[in-house]
Structure formats: C-alpha cells, structure tokens
C-alpha cells in the first residue's frame, strides 16, 4: 500500500538518507510504530515532486539509531519526539532535548510504547 518502500537496516540509514538528499528529495517526516513484540518499525518519508519514497528500518528496543538531523536539519523535532515518546535510542541529534521536549521533566518515560503502562493507569490521574 505504501509506494516506493525500501527496507534497510539501521547502519545503512545514513547512506540512504544522504542518497535521498543528493537526489534532491525533501524530508517529510518519520513514523515510529511499536510492533507489540520486541521490535519497533521506523519509517522515514521523503518526497520529490509529490512522489514519495519511504525507507523502513526495524530495530530492537534500546538499539542505537544514528540521527539524520546532520543531513536534514528539519528532522530534529521528529527525532526528539520519537526519542521521548517511544524511547528510541537516537544518538547525536543536532539539537537534543534529552528526552524532555513534549512531556514535563517528572514524566515517566515513553508513553507511546505498548507494553509499558496503559492509558487507564495514567489518564484519569488527578492532582
């Protein structure tokens, strides 16, 4: 269903991103999906003249992923977001908020992960 999908491993990511940049693709965004088991899918979406190119990597929780923000600066927000909400271990982001971009400092880690804590346990919390 997704056009131009390329599946790679995380150590090929920087080369693939550089290639996209060289071919004058525009970085659209990244998507992070918890597969429910031990792995996380990360998609990187690129666009050129309304044609999309999608790069997919599958990583284990806690595995290091290189940051693409040195190639596409506009990836800083989404990488910080993924780091915070999914607990992805993205290294060397150009502007690193240290996992506290959206949530407050005392927040528990990574609310978007499936097997960590459910919404019922946290949603109706009163101050």
């Amino acid at each position, binding site marked *: 269903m997704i056009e131009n999908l390329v599946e790679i491993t995380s150590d090929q990511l920087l080369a693939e991103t550089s290639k996209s940049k060289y071919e004058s693709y525009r970085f659209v965004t990244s998507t992070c999906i918890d597969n429910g088991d031990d792995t996380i899918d990360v998609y990187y979406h690129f666009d050129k003249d309304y044609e999309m190119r999608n790069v997919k990597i599958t990583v284990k929780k806690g595995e290091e992923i290189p940051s693409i923000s040195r190639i596409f600066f506009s990836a800083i927000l989404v990488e910080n977001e993924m780091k915070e909400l999914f607990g992805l271990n993205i290294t060397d982001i150009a502007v690193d908020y240290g996992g506290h971009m959206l949530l*407050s400092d005392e*927040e528990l880690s990574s*609310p978007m992960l499936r097997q960590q804590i459910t919404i019922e346990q946290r*949603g*109706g*919390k*009163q*101050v």
Partner: protein
Amino acid sequence: MGIISKSRKKSPWIMHYDCTSCNGCDIETLACLTPMYDAERLGIVNVGNPKHADILLVTGSANKRNSQVLKNIYNQMPDPKCVVAIGACACTGGIFRECYNVLGGIENVIPVDVYVPGCCAKPEAIIDGIVQAIGKLDEKAELMKNESK
C-alpha cells in the same frame, strides 16, 4: 456604587490563556471581540497582562507542563478575580480526558467560577459566561469588603 466597583462592573478586563485547546474555542473567544459579536459593547476589553485583568478565560484542559503556567497567571491577577472555563476540554477534559498527558479539567489546577459548555463553545455562550462572571466578581468584591471591615 463607588468608582472602582462601577468600573469593574461596566468594564471588566479579560485575559485569555490557551491550555491544550484545539484552537476552536480560542478563535471563538477572539471572535467574541470582533465586530459580529462585539463584546466591547459590554465594556469587555481583552488585555495581554495578567496584572491588568479581572477575568481569566481558559480554554482547553490542563496538562503537566502548562498547569504551572496557569497557576502563575492566576496568582499574578489582582483580587477580586474570576475564572471562566470555556469549552468541554476546560470543563472536564472533554474528548482528551483519557489522554496520557492530560490532567482533566482546569478545576484541578485553579478554582473555576463559571463553566461554558460546548465543543466548540459558541460566542454567544462565551459572552454569557463572561457576563455571569461579572456578577460573581461583584459578589467577591462584596465579600472582600466585609472581610476587611
């Protein structure tokens, strides 16, 4: 009626703070001030500084980060003061009640005097809420007077 209580009643100054609103209630609050609804005919003036404001309009529910800001703004306002919670989110948390970063309605953070329901709240309802808050403001002023005696 003294000059202060008269001016408070005839020209309440409002301040608007957006907590986690979806913008819907925000733009309706702003729309109240523009020619179609023209809240200024009731003397209602929008100000940007909490130290000038009598009534605080809050849209959207509280989350962990903005509850500090909300408390700060509330504490900076001079007494007597009123808080109007605008929209379903500000009243109860609305559709976002179950979200992980939402603490529920703003009543969990600061005391609320008037609740305006709706998603999004209509400008008519918002103006009605402000007018009710003016009444509350008067009551509070009376109370303060009696206490100081």
